[in-house]
């Protein structure tokens, strides 16, 4: 409305002024209709977004929410499978949460899960990054290697476990191969030594899921703008310096995303650990998913299992919130960097 017609200094309308007023009115109308159009476009976009989210909202409301509510009910009610219906279970308040939080087995399960998730996530990241760095520049036969590298991710985890079981015996092919390569008798008992059993699963997890990190990091590396790298090259920076001071900082949000997603997945690892160890030898591989499964489906302590699941869910929510916060911070710092660069270019 800032450009509407003005009344002349004499206070009377000249013909010219009249024309201007008509012009101004018509401009105002045009602006009004354009605003309406933009509002309706915004509304359409919102409807479109909502329609995309609707299946997810429906899934949450009708499938996940009832389960979460039922689980919440169980975690506040002590239900023994053999003594009556679940609807008659006794209300026990926070007793089950207290029981879980003071259960040393649960504490150890958290420690094992964290150790497993951190080590396997880092392993996946390191190998995934190496592969991505080798692959991000086009070369002849790239598609072939790409397929080869993602194959482990396409293998069902239980199959990974059973295949590994056949190969990881003390006198099995893996130890034999390593012994031949290094020329020393290499005989770790991957499957029966409680000190390395969890590490065995972590190694299998790394083998199984490195491709996941590889795909994310490859996409991230390929998306890095070429200009800063070219500029650094012109300035005579070494490859290592370009990598350390240009590529890596630009890749930070993607790295964080790859680490977070992998960590969350690793915390929930069940099939390989169960197929290979069922929590043993001793209790060396009794991670959170294994202990929750055993409590719920081996011991049929549905209520305690529900309380455990809630505690783990809260733990994961905290981790996810921290991750989102870090990701936002990374994104902000990158945006600022790009803005600064744009301003510098303009100047």
């Amino acid at each position, binding site marked *: 409305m800032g450009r509407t017609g003005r009344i002349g200094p004499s206070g009377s309308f000249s013909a010219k002024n009249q024309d201007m007023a008509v012009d101004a009115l018509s401009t105002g109308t045009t602006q009004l209709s354009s605003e309406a159009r933009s509002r309706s476009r915004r509304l359409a976009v919102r409807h479109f977004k909502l329609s995309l989210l609707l299946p997810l909202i429906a899934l949450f409301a009708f499938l996940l929410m009832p389960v979460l509510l039922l689980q919440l009910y169980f975690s506040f009610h002590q239900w*023994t*499978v*053999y*003594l009556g219906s679940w609807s008659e279970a006794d209300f026990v308040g926070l007793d089950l949460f207290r029981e879980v939080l003071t259960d040393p087995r649960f504490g150890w399960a958290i420690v094992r899960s964290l150790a497993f998730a951190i080590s396997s996530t880092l392993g996946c990241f390191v190998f995934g990054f190496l592969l991505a760095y080798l692959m991000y520049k086009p070369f002849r036969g790239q598609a072939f290697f790409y397929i080869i590298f993602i194959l482990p991710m396409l293998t069902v985890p239980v199959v990974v476990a059973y295949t590994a079981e056949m190969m990881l*015996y*003390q*006198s099995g092919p893996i130890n034999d191969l390593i012994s031949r390569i290094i020329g020393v008798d290499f005989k770790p*008992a991957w*499957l*029966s*030594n*409680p000190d390395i*059993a969890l590490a065995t699963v972590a190694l299998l997890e790394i083998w199984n899921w490195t491709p996941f990190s590889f795909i994310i990091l490859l996409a991230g590396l390929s998306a890095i703008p070429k200009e800063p790298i070219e500029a650094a090259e012109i300035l005579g920076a070494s490859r290592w310096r370009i990598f350390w001071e240009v590529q890596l900082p630009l890749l930070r949000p993607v790295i964080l995303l790859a680490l977070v997603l992998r960590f969350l997945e690793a915390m929930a690892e069940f099939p390989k650990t169960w197929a*290979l*160890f*069922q*929590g*043993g*030898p*001793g*209790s*060396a591989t009794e991670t959170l998913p294994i202990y929750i499964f*055993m409590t719920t*489906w*081996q*011991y*049929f*302590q*549905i209520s305690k299992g529900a309380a455990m699941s809630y505690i783990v869910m809260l733990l994961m929510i905290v981790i996810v919130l921290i991750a989102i916060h870090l990701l936002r911070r990374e994104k902000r710092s990158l945006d600022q960097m790009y803005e600064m660069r744009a301003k510098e270019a303009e100047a």
Partner: protein
Amino acid sequence: MSRSGFSRRTFLQGSVGLTVANFVPGTTPFAHAATMEEQTIAAAKAVGKADVNGMIWSPYLVPMKPVIAEFTKETGIGIGAVQDISIFDAPQRAMAEALSHSPQFDFIHIDSNMIPSLASAGYLEPLDEYIKKAGFQLDAVADYGKFMKYGGQTFGVPTDGNVHIQYTRKDLIDNPDNKKRFADKFGVELKVPETWEDNLRLQEFLMDPSKDLYGSGNLRNRANGPTWWYMIFYSAGGFPFDDDMKPTLDTPAGQYAVDLYLQDKKVNHPEAANWGTPQMIPRIAQGHVVSCQYWDGTCKTIANPKQSKTVDQFYFSLVPGSKFTGKMVHRSISSPLAAILINKYSPRKAQAAYLALWLGSGKNSIPIVSDPVNAFNDAWAKEHMKAEPVLKAYTPEGIKAVETNFQVVAPPIYLTGYLEFQDALGKNLSEAYVGQLPGKDVLKKTENEWNAIIGRIGRSKLKNDLASYKAVMPTKAVPT
């Protein structure tokens, strides 16, 4: 009557005479009495045709298929959808079915030690009425049939005896050089062991890891380990609970069993801590083991030249016993004892029940238990013990061992909450075996955990279960 030349008196006298003759041993009855199998078919026909759905592991199902096909031909009752699930994973799945009162499966094939838990969760259909209508008799060896009962009702039909027998390497203990060295060292004859201590000594003496020959082939993993512990514990006079359902593990008998159990580490393969049957059976059959107590089906594997390098190289016999109580007591074990149980919520429970009875007839199950390749279903019926195909598959010596061990066979814990009790013990034994827990703490820790389980399930409920548990325990100290 007069027209036919018979007087009324003559006819009556003749009738009485024939009736009496019918009961005289060795005379052939004039009227053809329907066999148990015929009665089962008649009863099944009365409930109508159906395809029943079940949860069963394929190695168990495969040899049953021809027997089921015969039943389908006669009655129209056959197998529909099958969930192929390992017998070790089936309890969790079955319990989930029980909790949801799901009618999805008409029958489940599962470890019969789950009967108390599943019956307590209201999932199982009692079979006594069907048994009566079909004139069915569970023709099990010794008191093995009792394993199907809980709270005075019958809930299962066995398909697999799974009794443990002793395997001792014939070629090693009959070797004259070994015999002489053993006699020189210990002053006694080298022979099939009678006690647990004899067994351990023999294993230590004959093992030679440099030739990949280990003394023991027993399982020591978390899931299976307790099975072996129970044999020693029971034979030492132990029983896990008193009449008030207080755990009685931490006793001299219990500690004796733990000590012997852990000593196996000296003679077993270094990786035994996590080995199950898929690893151990090939080692036994390929000749890498001196002796062990193992499931009877391994007889079939050993006797099958396509699967074994030790044909005729094993003695099959009674498991070792103990003189811990002052007199010799032998206790074998059957676990998991695979049986067919029927879902109470199934709309086809009658059809499923009659199919189970058909499969559970001693005569019908001969081809099932004698399959030399799918060796999971092991002999259990009296009729199996003399059937030619069974004797051929197990060898006569093997069947004799099976029959002998059945006389002293016990279950592991036969109570509601079986898996929970079992895992607490299994975890602690496994921790001790791998050095995470001192051996002296195993039983105290297990008792504490068992007390918590008892508190959760309810002492009074478990006290009621205790009668069923005691009823399935063997009464003989030594087989006759």
